[in-house]
């Protein structure tokens, strides 16, 4: 009985390669940070306040004509073109107290081009709204992260696991932010929702690996932490690849044909999920290993040095099966001939 497998059973020493991944991630994080500091973010009016008007002209229109018309009326605006639609987004950022003033001025200026147009969309965001929403979003985000650290710490008997899960999540979210900064894509509130999606998916992936480690500790009490982590990565590798592949392709479909509204949004998710697959597979286990090797090993895990001492006479707290549901497989270490140890 052969399965259709994209990837065969593997036995790669991911932990041995951890430094490579640390370097890669270090470079990515540094690049993101550099871009955020020097290039900054292209915040949308959701955050800066201001007015955006999207218009579609009934005849071909040159962006230069629009720019001239606006400048003549004393309006300082960013203009974005929608390819193939003869449509433009005219954006005036900054504090504006009067709701319709800027929109009216833009319309008046565009009428001077003498080409008829439709106003498709107008957004006005007052100065207090953006900063308030951003503050609330950040606060909710921080609280949600803290709750996850505590829960994961509780479920895996050590706060390190929770902290590592959040480190991975931070990696994925910050890389996405970095890419948006580098490409100067606009960050609006919908992108905040995308970042939340990335965070959720990142934690999900991390927990799958942790869960496997937790199980393997029970099955192989004598293994070193390196063996445990490597086996857990390899065993969950096909899951990680299949899930990530499915979700990433689905998101890519939305990116390419989902229309303009979903473009930036699906792009953010695409970047974040790709990063999430990578952190789940190799970065988090490497971080956990690095941490435990430093002596701060967890209650539930044996470090390399203490592996022989802690050869599993007493039940380990972290192997506890949770609730009734699991008691059925609170096992009896199974004999497993074809399992690979390194």
């Amino acid at each position, binding site marked *: 009985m052969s399965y259709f497998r994209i990837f065969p059973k593997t036995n790669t020493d991911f932990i041995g390669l951890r430094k490579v991944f640390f370097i890669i991630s270090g470079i990515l994080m540094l690049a993101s940070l550099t871009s955020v500091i020097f290039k900054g973010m292209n915040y949308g009016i959701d955050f800066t306040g201001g007015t955006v008007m999207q218009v579609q002209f009934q005849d071909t229109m040159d962006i230069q004509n629009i720019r001239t018309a606006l400048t003549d009326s004393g309006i300082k605006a960013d203009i974005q073109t929608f390819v193939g639609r003869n449509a433009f987004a005219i954006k005036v950022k900054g504090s504006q107290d009067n709701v319709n003033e800027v929109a009216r001025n833009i319309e008046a200026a565009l009428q001077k081009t003498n080409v008829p147009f439709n106003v498709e*969309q107008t957004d006005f965001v*007052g100065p207090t709204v953006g900063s308030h929403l951003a503050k609330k979003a950040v606060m909710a985000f921080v609280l949600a992260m803290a709750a996850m650290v505590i*829960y994961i710490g509780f479920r895996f008997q050590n706060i390190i696991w929770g902290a590592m899960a959040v480190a991975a999540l931070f990696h994925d979210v910050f890389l996405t932010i970095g890419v948006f900064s580098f490409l100067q894509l606009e960050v609006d*509130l919908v992108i905040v929702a995308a970042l939340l*999606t990335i965070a959720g998916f990142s934690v*999900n992936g991390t927990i799958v690996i942790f869960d496997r480690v937790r199980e393997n500790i029970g099955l192989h009490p004598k293994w070193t932490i390196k063996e445990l982590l490597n086996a857990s990565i390899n065993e969950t590798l096909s*899951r990680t690849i299949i899930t990530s592949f*499915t979700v990433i392709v689905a998101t890519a479909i939305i990116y390419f044909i989902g229309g303009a509204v979903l473009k930036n949004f699906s792009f953010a998710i695409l970047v974040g999920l790709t990063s999430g697959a990578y952190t789940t597979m190799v970065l988090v286990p490497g971080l956990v290993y690095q941490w435990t090797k430093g002596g701060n090993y967890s209650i539930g895990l044996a470090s390399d040095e203490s592996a022989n001492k802690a050869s599993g006479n007493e039940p380990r707290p972290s192997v506890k099966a949770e609730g009734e549901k699991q008691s059925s*497989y609170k096992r009896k270490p199974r004999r497993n001939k074809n399992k690979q140890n390194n």
Partner: protein
Amino acid sequence: MNKLAIKWTIVIIAIFGAVALLYPSYEWYSKTTAEREKLEASGDRPKRILNLGLDLRGGSSLLLELDVSKLTGNESLNESMQRAIEIVRNRIDQYGVGEIPITRQGEKWISVQLPGIANPEQAEALIGKTAMLEFRIVKTDNEAQETINKLMELDNPFNPDGTLTEQAAALVPAGLTVMKDKQGFMVPLTDTAAVTGADLEDARVSTGEYGYPAVSFQLNGDGAKKFGNLTSANMKKDLAIILDNTVQSHPTIQARISNSGQITGRFTMEEARQLAIVLRAGALPAPVNIIEKRTIGPGLGEDSIKSGVKASIIAFIFIVVFMSIYYRFSGIIASVALVLNLLFLLALMAYFSATLTLPGIAGIILSLAMAVDANVLILERMREEKDKGQPLPLVIKEGYAKAWSAIFDSNLTTWIASLLLFQFGTGPVKGFALTLTLGLFVGVFTSVFVTRAIYDLILTANPKEISI
């Protein structure tokens, strides 16, 4: 009943329940836009249906801020906000566009969603007005009746703000005026208001005759004198309670009323409460400013929905096809679970009258991704068990048992986070958290419970193998 029968009963009830919950939404959206608008205007919009956010269907959304620095009196902020919202609602209702969601956001913000209005400036002007509460006597003489008949021949005798148009005003004789009531009927009234909102002190819900809810009100000293004169002079006539040029109700005067009175009628509790609020409302407690306004032309909203839906369907088909090819028969079972997942999620959203927005779609994507992951986890575990040469029933049993802890932990972690986001987030974050909270719940149900029910059913036929 054995365990399998119980499982299937649950699954079948869930499916029928979901279809029943979604049917009103299906019926609603298969109507033409004109039909929907007509029903909306008459208030016959079904309650428990899936709503589309303005980012997806076009329209205008306004965010108003109550200028709390100008609040006077001893009312709490909550009471002021409640009054402000009620006043805004009254004014927008005059615009005649059916049900408008008006909700409080945060401390001092009011969100107003105006679907389908591409140019909301008229609505904005209405919101900015000062409120006017008046008591007038309803006229019933022949002159009044004739005037109404004349006005009936006009297309629309009222301006958007409830006053008579120039053409209509010319037909109304001196000493008389005409206003519309909430149903749009014309009510002939005295042309002066003897008592106004300035004379009112308070209004509360109370119990009237036969135990029906009623509204009791108190007048201040000056008002009591005026009201006493007005009511004793107009016994058995109708007293119209008017807010912003719209007659709210016109109860019959039963006795002389001076400092306090009671308005009865066969009110429901909700109607009485609203009337009390309207009476208390009077003028806005403080000025409101528009601090955010987003207008999306209906064409753009439709376009974005069309391409978004098309892309989502293709993405969904990709997942189903891929799972079925990769995991064969078991992949088909997983796909069935995914389809049910979407069905149940939309049904729940319809039940909660949730509004689907772009961030909400993000929540659905994440919950679906996690449901796919749950299936992949189970199937990969099954393959592992199969590799060990286990018999089929054990492969399935162990596959589920071993995948469960990862599914449980990852979903619960995300669920905790999404609950917090729902609690503390605003706007788009909340929209995201709502669909995610529901989606995770549904996802675990379909990808673990439903698929297991399917396998258990298949196992009763004692198959040798199921392709995984």
